[in-house]
């Protein structure tokens, strides 16, 4: 547990958008994916995922609808909209520029 990293402010939205790019998923699926993909390194507060999803929905980047989960229960699935896809691209570029710049600064002697 000690080497888990706190999530940076505002990055949860980017993560959600990225994960939804693979296809529609419900909230619980997303938390599992975050665990699996980050190999358990990220400390995501599950609760904060849901406000984030609602926020993205209000922006029109994702769309939520009720569906049936793999264990045959009613669950709310989220899906990336075209606007969400564009948002993901621009946010990813911004993030890459930022992390490159940060890396340069931190590596500078």
């Amino acid at each position, binding site marked *: 547990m000690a080497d888990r990293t706190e999530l940076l402010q505002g990055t949860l939205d980017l993560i959600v958008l990225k994960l939804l790019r693979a296809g529609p998923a*419900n*909230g*619980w699926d997303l*938390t599992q994916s975050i665990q699996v993909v980050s190999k358990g390194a990220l400390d995501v*507060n*599950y*609760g*904060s995922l*849901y*406000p*984030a*999803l*609602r*926020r993205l*929905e*209000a922006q029109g980047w994702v769309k939520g609808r009720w569906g049936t*989960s793999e264990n045959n*229960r*009613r*669950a*709310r699935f989220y899906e990336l909209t075209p606007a969400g896809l564009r948002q993901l691209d621009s946010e990813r570029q911004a993030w890459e520029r930022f992390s490159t710049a940060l890396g340069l600064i931190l590596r500078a002697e």
Partner: protein
Amino acid sequence: MLARVMVRLKALVSRRAFDAELDEELSYHIEREFERNVAAGMEHAAARDAARRAFGNVTVVTEQARDASRWRRLEELRQDVEYTLRTFRRAPLFVLTVVCTIGLGLGLLSAAFTFFDAYVLRPLAVRDPYSLYEVGWSSANGSKHHFSSAQLDELRSDKTLVSEAFGYTIVQARLRAHPALGQAVSANFFSMLGVPPAFGRTLLSNDDERPDVVVLSHHAWTSAFGTDSSVIGLRINLNGSAFTVVGVAREGFGGLTSSPFDFWVPLTSSAPAASPESRFRRQNIEGLSVVVRLAPSVSRDRGIAQVLARMQAATADLPTLERATSVTFIPKGTSIAINPETIAIFAPVVTAFALVLLIACANVANIMLARGMARQREIGIRLALGAGRRRLIRQLVTEAMVLSVPAGVLGFVVSRVSIWVSLRVMFSTVPTAYAGYLRVIPLDTDARVLAFVVLAAVTGSLAFGLIPALQATRPNIVQASRGDFDTQFRPSRLRNALVVTQVMLSVLLLISAGVLLSGARRTAAVDPGIRTENVVQIELLRQFRARSLDRLRAEPTVRGMATSSSTVLDGRFDELTVSPTDAPAQRASYNVVSPGYFSVLGLPLLAGRNFTEDEARSAANVAIVSQSTADRLWPGKSPIGETLTIPATDPNYQYLQSFHTTRVIGVTRDAVPGSLNESATLPMVYYPLPLDASVSRILVRVSGESEQAVATLERALATVDSAAVVEMHSLASALALQVYPFRAMYWVATALGAIALILTLIGVYGVLSYIVAQRRREFGIRLALGAAGSTLVAMVMRQSLRLSLTGVAIGVMLALAVSRLFASVLLNIHTFDAAGYAAGIGLVVAACVVAAYAPSRRAASVNPVETLRADS
């Protein structure tokens, strides 16, 4: 389907549904977590705890999700509206004032818009109205022409140009003693327009062979036949001939013009129905108006070009002046076509009404501003407690929006009432002889009018809500929460600007009213040069003419009779070309009259002599000209004995052949026998005609009051035949009708000016009362230091006058521009109308003084001891 939509809508706005969904979503997550824990081998209780712990605080998450969702704004809006309603319940008088003020202004503007919409914007309820055009052509000499039926048939046969076309003439008749106007139309009229009957049938193509059928308008059926459904098959008398009623047209249909028609007969029946004076009036024998439906691929410009080419070919043999030079296509999609002239006429009217709404809005903005000041402490506290300025502005704008709902409803009611009242007033003030012909197209409320009302209400409330909101939320928190905002908060400039605007607009409206009133007076005072008192004009049906004349001769009130080929005071007379020997040809109005014409109309012969009875009977080659004609054609010499020729190429030549070459035997005074808007000095030529000629129009000079004489003569002629009279009116009422538009404009302008003045009075009163209340302490100190009460009165009065004079100055400048616009359109309107300006300025300044008086007295009656103690 609808039910499902409703469920979904409800889910959208309902907070409970939102929470339930979120709840379900969150419990699904916890459930899965729990299942995973169980699968990992935990005990049930521990697995549940772990799942909850991993998730965090459900309540907090719910709150956060709710805030993040898009429904939060709706939720806030609901709160704002609830809060607003609570506030309003505490201030009913405020709400009432605002709603009434805005409702009044909005209602008047909406009424004006309803007229504009009904006449100019609403497409006529006929098939594909926008492809319909009324065609007209003009010749090089400027006269406008109609079409012959042969020309119509030829035009119709070209299917590449027009897909359909009909011709019509206007028929005047009495429908069961009700004055009525109808159209004689081509048999394809109804099928081309796609207008079905309400019942019975409309005209069919074979009605051309069986022309004694008539289709009634729904309005005529209601008013003249009392919605009697057994009307079908009834034989009715139209201008002395029997017609069979075959149907009633769909409700609301009245043809394609701005004045709806009462009946339709086939064009082939127009001979008995139309005026029989066609021998002298070219328009009536073959003068067809033509409406075409352009073929789908043909543009308006191409249509004009092709018809022009046709008419040029058809008139190529005529002399240059008579050849077709231009063709007009008037769109018939709406009652009145939208073109620059229509907009030029409607724009000032709608602007005037919009100004009243603007004044009302300024008043309300002032009230809101005063309220904003009064609520300064509340707003200050809310700001201090951390409310965002945007949130507060939104709250204040919401208040304005909530007010706009009842204001809009009231405005709608006011617009319907004022339309009803104005129609009533119009019907009761138009000269009685014409009221029977007055028809108004349906002035219904349609989607456009509703959209307009909503838009105007919202725009208005944004204007009066947003500005005060921006002002009121500006102050420094600390000061405001103490209720002390004198240093930072200076709304007085805004309030003064609003009052100046109001005064300015009132001055503008009142001066315009004054200028129009002077114009109406001046038009009424125009001397037409003919006697209009005690003269009655009658149109008789030809077959009863001789017997009617005999009956009139026996009538004691009849002092003299004359006949005239042109209708007196009913618009311009017909024109022709006359060429004197040794001088260039001239255009002149003409009239063919019996010798009695000059004495009946009181036109003295200034030189020479009148026509003799013999000359009249033999259509002798003699003419009488007006003074101006004589001066223009034979300057400096006597016209008596000179020769006048009508060129054979003149379009009226065939009807006036007997007067081809005439000798001038007399000169009469200049007169404006046609329309007051033309100059008396236009050339005018008279030719002789016997009294018993087959011309339908006769003029009767009567003794005694002319309206009474009209009734007497109606009764007398009814003994000849009930259908003997086609139409009868006094010349005085014909004259009144020509002045009527000016009077109507003046009434509207005065009513608007009065309302504007009252609103301004309220506005000035409100602002000064507020200022006095605000400066109570200062006044108290002044009084305590020995200032006289009269000094304080003068101070407040000066403030009022300063505001009003600024407004007056700007208003006068605007009024100068506006009256110049009027003067450029209308004869008899003067730009610098001293009386109009003086009256407008005087009224507004007086109103401002009156409005300032009560507040100024209040300033003087401040009790210094009380105020000083109360405020310490």
